[in-house]
């Protein structure tokens, strides 16, 4: 079921809200949890004295001490393996990868141990891995990736990709409360560019529920992360031509809110799946395949996918721009779909 915009999060009326960047929302959410629950600790490269490469944990070590805000050695498997061990004996670890790209170095731990321990032996592994991801600033092939799709094939993991400051905070709190390993993708391009009202109080945004970012009648876009804003701009273009676009912000990739997507598609009959990650084998394929199968009778056009092409993320600005889906690309895809 889709949550309408006004139902977002669980913020009750009367809540104090403040304008916050996406980054501040994450930082505040994490600090709040650490104040509230002594079991929560933070570990990662340069998260302590330096406050993290993106300064999400700035000031945390002063407040919580060096044993709850741990500067780790440059060893991703040690970091995440240690989180799993600590979680099993009762802690609630939150790890930071310096860039999401470096999680490749802990792939084995996540897919082999963290993801499977509960199914195999019933041992819960409540860890959160924070992953600054995404491109758009000439980070090149190794500082720009969106590796969520590779993990979205591994049963036992949960994956969230918030697009708004409010969701970023609420999903982080939910991720920490969740009894499973949660990969928390933070889009770097949103960190300081996106600012919105965020309740001061603690609230949980449900994992596994999509958010209706914008209502529309003629076409649906399903997307997540920074692409929500690209989609919004493109939809505004289409609106000028009297085409009304509904935007579903998936927010969670594993488990994804199939019902919400199907509901929207049953209304609009046309779907564009949009993501920043590369196309082949990207999670967009799962969405497209599911919708094409389960809404077969409702579709007035083939489900389209728009994603980055199948290459590494290039460094040089013109190449990177051609790589990451742009507003014009989305407009083109939507227009084609509208005309189908």
């Amino acid at each position: 079921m889709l949550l309408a915009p006004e139902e977002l999060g669980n913020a009750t009326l009367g809540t104090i809200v403040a304008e916050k960047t996406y980054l501040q929302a994450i930082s505040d959410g994490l600090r709040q949890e650490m104040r509230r629950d002594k079991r929560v600790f933070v570990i990662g490269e340069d998260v302590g004295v330096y406050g993290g490469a993106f300064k999400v944990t700035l000031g945390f070590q002063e407040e919580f001490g060096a044993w709850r805000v741990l500067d780790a050695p440059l060893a991703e498997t040690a970091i995440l393996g240690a989180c799993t061990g600590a979680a099993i004996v009762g802690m609630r670890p939150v790890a930071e990868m310096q860039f999401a790209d470096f999680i490749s170095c802990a792939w084995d731990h996540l897919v082999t141990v963290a993801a499977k321990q509960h199914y195999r032996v019933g041992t819960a592994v409540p860890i959160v891995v924070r992953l600054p991801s995404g491109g758009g600033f000439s980070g090149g092939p190794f500082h720009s990736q969106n590796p969520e799709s590779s993990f979205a094939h591994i049963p036992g993991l949960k994956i969230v990709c918030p697009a708004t400051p409010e969701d970023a905070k609420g999903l982080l709190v939910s991720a920490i409360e969740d009894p499973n390993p949660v990969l928390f993708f933070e889009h770097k391009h949103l960190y300081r560019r996106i600012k919105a009202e965020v309740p001061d109080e603690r609230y949980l945004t449900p994992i596994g529920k999509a958010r209706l970012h914008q209502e529309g009648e003629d076409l649906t876009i399903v997307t997540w992360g920074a692409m929500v804003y690209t989609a919004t701009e493109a939809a505004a273009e289409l609106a000028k031509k009297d085409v009304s676009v509904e935007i579903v912000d998936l927010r969670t990739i594993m488990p994804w809110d199939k019902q919400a997507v199907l509901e929207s598609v049953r209304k609009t009959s046309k779907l564009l799946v949009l993501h920043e990650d590369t196309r082949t084998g990207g999670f967009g394929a799962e969405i497209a395949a599911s919708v094409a199968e389960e809404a077969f009778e409702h579709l007035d056009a083939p489900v389209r996918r728009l994603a980055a092409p199948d290459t590494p993320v290039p460094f040089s600005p013109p190449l990177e721009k051609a790589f990451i889906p742009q507003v014009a690309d989305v407009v083109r895809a939507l227009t084609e779909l509208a005309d189908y």
Partner: protein
Amino acid sequence: MAIAREAEPVGSLKEVEDAGLDREDLLQIYRNLLMTRGIEERGHILYKQGKIPGSFYTGRGNEAAAVGVATAMGSEDVGTPLHRDMGVHITRGVEPWRIFAQYMGRVDGPTKGRDGNVHMADDRLGLIAMVSHLPAMLPVAVGCALAFRIREEQRVAVGWFGEGASARGDTHEAMTLAGTRHLPMVFICDNNQWAYSTPSHLEYASEHIADRAASYGFEGVVVDGTDVLAVYREAKRAIEKARAGGGPTLVECMTLRMEGHAVHDDAFYVPKELFEEWAARDPLERFRTWLREHAELSDDEEHEIAGDVKKVLNEAIRRAEESPLPDVDTLLEGVYATPEELETPHHK
């Protein structure tokens, strides 16, 4: 160039008593050794009878190393034993029938048939189940130690690895984190000289695995893994040192893998003489002899213990065979944990 300390064998009963073991403890150790070997011997038979699916591994030759270390652990300590460490499960109190149920893929095994072999553990006993990928549980053990350090608990984590797995990056990262943070962690290397068919000199190029401890900022010690009391003494020292804030130790237990890698493997690549040499140092025989010479183990006691172990094993197999195979309707259950499971954590 050896860097690590090489531990002396254990001599007298006095020495053992100083290390905190009374005669009852010694008999319990003996019993655990017999039970460990018995389970694996019986498992082997069940396997040949076609009652155990998949493949089958034993830790023959490693019983003393496993039991010795586990005996040295405190009840609140935790560990991540591997496929040669049945003795750890036994010493920590896993009921034998549940192990046979595990072997046979029945619902009463610790993994309820989801996993096989020694890929199991009872977390209520402070043990965390291994995965196949070696030594992926070492960083996990270090994480337990980290939690104990953060919470300032006097608990210790024990992590096992083989000399083959010593080559993998996980071993290094685990030791690096434990060493730089002086965590209450003890690393146990089951050095049985072979990794499947690969001899040690292709896995590491130093004299001892324990030599590398120095480069992680902690102590290394090499001990004869067939001498259960020497293993106990060194593990105890290491564990209590860790508990007292003295940081990690790497204890290397030297043994020989007395059978093939798994039952399908006849170990043709291991020189016969080596098997003969180590057969003469069989850990059970060795301890039995020691008990007779130093602790007055009588024929009666010996028979009583052996008879008791046999009875437990017979009963265990019977009970395990009564345990049902898992219901296919449960296939999809438990991929994800539920919040309620965190309300009563196995370990605080």
